[in-house]
């Protein structure tokens, strides 16, 4: 509950996310997505209820640093996240503070920068980078911490389509390497990459299921202020036109296959 607001930003939410899951969180502005995520690494504490991260309760003061090491956050605006004057120093900031030996820091920083495609910029000053490049540096900073769980809070919203595709691929790779990923996004095409989609509305969980299940309910999604991915919307229209397109089509490739079957 925020001061001066009568309704709770997040209201009676009970969810459980397992190690290694890839979860997308959707919902209109003000639906409580970011507020929820900020509880995952103790930026916010609940007014009531509890949050447990890797068996640690977030209300336990002594565990804050362990929890924040476990859950890394990447935010929307990279300018608010970069602290150093050289790219590689910025990425090294967190592991340095964790007391990692220098040789391993070197390894982690190089690896993190390579996986976001910013290795060749490692000696640059952040202010010389574009918004998308800065965001990738911020992501590298979390990667270098080797957090078990990474929360992306609309991290792609300032990126161009290429940067967004690279980020989506990076998220997928991190997840395949074992990280738990929570991606809060307004982009439906990112959500379909996840194993599980949670739709928030008015501070509550409206829907929780696989992307195919979630995007099957067009009416409910639209009521929650969300769009179908365009290929799914076209599939829906074609079905209305009387064509035999199976439900659950989400991507352009799947729709191509369906149309070819009809010819």
């Amino acid at each position, binding site marked *: 509950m925020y001061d001066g607001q009568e309704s709770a930003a997040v209201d009676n939410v009970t969810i459980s996310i397992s190690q290694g899951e890839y979860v997308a969180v959707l919902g209109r502005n*003000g639906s409580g997505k970011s507020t929820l995520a900020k509880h995952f690494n103790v930026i916010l504490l609940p007014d009531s209820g509890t949050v447990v991260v890797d068996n640690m309760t977030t209300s336990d003061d002594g565990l804050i640093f362990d929890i924040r090491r476990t859950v890394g956050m990447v935010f929307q605006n990279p300018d608010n996240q970069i602290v150093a004057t050289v790219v590689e120093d910025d990425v090294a900031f967190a592991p340095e503070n964790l007391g990692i030996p220098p040789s391993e820091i070197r390894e982690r920083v190089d690896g993190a920068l390579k996986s976001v495609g910013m290795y060749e910029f490692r000696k640059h000053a952040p202010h010389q980078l574009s918004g998308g490049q800065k965001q990738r540096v911020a992501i590298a900073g979390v990667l270098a911490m080797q957090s078990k769980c990474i929360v992306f809070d*609309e991290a792609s919203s300032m990126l161009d*389509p*290429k940067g967004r595709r690279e980020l989506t691929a990076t998220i997928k790779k991190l997840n395949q390497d074992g990280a738990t990923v929570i991606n809060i996004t*307004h982009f439906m095409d990112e959500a379909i990459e996840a194993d599980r989609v949670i739709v928030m509305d008015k501070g509550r969980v409206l829907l929780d299921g696989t992307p195919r299940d979630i995007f099957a309910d067009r009416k409910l999604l639209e009521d929650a202020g969300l769009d179908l*991915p*365009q290929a799914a919307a*076209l599939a829906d229209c074609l079905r209305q036109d009387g064509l035999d397109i199976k439900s659950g089509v989400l991507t352009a490739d799947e729709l191509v296959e369906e*149309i070819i079957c009809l010819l």
Partner: protein
Amino acid sequence: MPVIKTENLTHVYGRGTPYMRTAINNISIEINEGEFVGIIGHTGSGKSTLIQHLNGLLKPSSGSVFVDGADIWDKGKSNLKQLRLNVGLVFQYPEYQLFEETVFRDVAYGPKNLGLEGEQLNKIVEYACNAVGLEPDLWEKSPFELSGGQKRRAAIAGVLAMEPKVLILDEPAAGLDPAGHKAIMSIIREYHAAKKNTVILISHTMDDIAASADRVLVLSGGEVFDFDTVDRIFSRADELEKMGLSIPQVAKVFIGLKERGIPVNTGIYTIQAAREEIKRLIC
């Protein structure tokens, strides 16, 4: 006469340093009065550098910019203040520039500095607030009490209140949720339809460009890749995708069908056109 014209416009950042980079190279374009032009291009393609030349925020390294036929850097004739009245620029995330105590005063800041006052000032501010759909009960609130989408509207209203002849918007809907995104785009389209002013829109969202623009300028590596009608640009959707741009999924469906040897038109990017083309294909 084109309202905006560039001739061999080139801008080099950091000349004489190890980070020297030619951001835009030899750009010659003409934009006509009343046109709605979309600009697309990958990050670093020069979109923002180009538009900052159009109201004199950046000075060309070489080449010229003409607004209303006058070279904006022509000594003696140049009048940057007048230029910035004519060409209004809405930056990315303009809500970070809100600063006044009330929404009304923030929107009024520009026209007030132009010397408007009293009834005239109130009228233009009311017009701008209404144009972006800010209800009167918000006008006396602090801009910082508004939601993200409302802040964005207030910031855009501040530029509309200057009644620019040319309105340039850099990713005006970025970071908003789908409903906020649609609202901002329809505000811009309505403004253009009502005022018949020139609008230049930078967007990564091809659907927005497809739904709004008359012509599309595609920049790649600081140069003009193409500048043509929406239909002709999207008929090159496969090339746009290779440049790292995101094309509407509908366009991808038709490229996919063509790759599989199905005789389809690939210049299709809206759901309505797609329905018709698929009906034609199947019947």
